[in-house]
């Protein structure tokens, strides 16, 4: 077998192996994506209910009483420092997922000078190490499926630090899952919270004359931290769904490319093999003709 044909055959084998691997990874990503989506949908019921209750309470809490919560206001002695949590993935091979997040982070750094940087995900941590940017806190406790309790602990730290006046604001940069076709790296202001809006024009509606226990102001004060926690939990969930979807798409593209490459290599191989056969035949015919003479 001529060297060229052998080389092409070797490449065909390698590409075939790559195709098998990427196809397996695509199937794993699909299964994980479905599991993450189920989880995110299950968590949405809680988030939706909390938002509904906060909205009902916002209607009932009149005047500045509702806005008196420290989670809704910037600290009095502004330090100019903000906290930023960046949610990246622990694994690669997920297309532009991490690159989009990093682009959003770089945009954020242009707008804010004094940033307390916290990172979740090995890829983000490796990037900041590579560019020489100090990561103040690296959250390595989050695996592929962070629990509400784990996220709650982080949210509690942010709320305590924010109320203590350590930061003027807390942001999260994550990948929002908008639809199957669209995921977007976004910066979400976690704290201070946007004041909750009522469902209507602020008037207490007839059907919603609630019996409150304790008083609505107290209930709202209890609910606001829960809202912060659920928002952060939702960020984690959406990031995970988006990551698996990106990986699924990237692996499908890789599998398709490998398939195309294999086809093209097959043609090259057949051509090279045919040309080797033709050369061999002409040599035999030439040799036989020389013997006849």
């Amino acid at each position: 077998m001529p060297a060229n044909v052998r080389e092409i055959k070797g490449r065909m084998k390698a590409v075939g192996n790559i195709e098998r691997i990427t196809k397996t990874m695509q199937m794993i990503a699909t299964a994980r994506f479905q599991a993450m989506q189920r989880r995110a949908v299950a968590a949405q019921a809680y988030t939706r209910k909390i938002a509904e209750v906060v909205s009902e309470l916002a209607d009932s809490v009149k005047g500045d009483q509702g806005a008196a919560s420290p989670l809704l206001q910037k600290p009095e002695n502004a330090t100019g420092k903000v906290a930023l949590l960046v949610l990246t993935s622990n694994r690669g091979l997920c297309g532009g997922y991490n690159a989009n997040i990093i682009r959003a982070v770089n945009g954020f750094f242009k707008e804010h000078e004094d940033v307390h940087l916290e990172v979740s995900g090995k890829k983000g941590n490796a990037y900041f190490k590579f560019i020489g940017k100090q990561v103040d806190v690296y959250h390595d406790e989050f695996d592929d499926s962070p629990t509400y309790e784990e996220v709650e602990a982080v949210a509690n730290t942010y709320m305590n630090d924010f109320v203590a006046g350590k930061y003027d604001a807390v942001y999260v940069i994550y990948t929002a899952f908008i639809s199957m076709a669209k995921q977007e790296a976004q910066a979400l202001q976690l704290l201070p919270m946007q004041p909750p809006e009522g469902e209507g024009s602020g008037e207490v509606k007839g059907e919603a004359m609630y019996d409150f226990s304790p008083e609505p102001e107290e209930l709202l004060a209890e609910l606001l931290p829960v809202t912060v926690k659920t928002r952060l939990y939702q960020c984690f969930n959406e990031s995970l769904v988006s990551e698996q979807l990106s990986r699924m798409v990237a692996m499908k593209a890789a599998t398709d490319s490998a398939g195309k490459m294999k086809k093209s290599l097959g043609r090259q191989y057949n051509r090279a093999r045919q040309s080797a056969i033709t050369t061999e035949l002409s040599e035999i015919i030439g040799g036989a003709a020389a013997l006849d003479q």
Partner: protein
Amino acid sequence: MPSTATFQCSLVTPGAQVLDEKIVYASIPAHDGQIGVEHLCAPMLVKLGYGHLRLDLADGSSESYFVGGGFVQMKDDVLSIITDEACPAADIRANEAEKQLEDLISAEAKTGVEKEQHDKAVQRARARVAVAKGH
């Protein structure tokens, strides 16, 4: 005579929607004591405490849970129980719950914040033991 009219009830936790069914009665551990909810109950928004949640379903059966804080909303004859934790009472083992309570009582909290959290944890563990024994 107790009412047999049904109303919708949903029980949600951060991880899942535990229940979404028609019920006839709910006994809920509010922050200031147990409350009962029936069909056409007045709208209310109540903070949940730790304790035993009993839901009497439309088919005559009952479901019992340990709930660990949250909120209850009754509106338009729909009861929403939003809680951090909803564990079926049958899944709680009394001896394990008691051991957990003993461990918590023997543990010391130093700072004010820690003490507050510790007190809450003890309160929660006590309620868990009570639910486990009462079931």
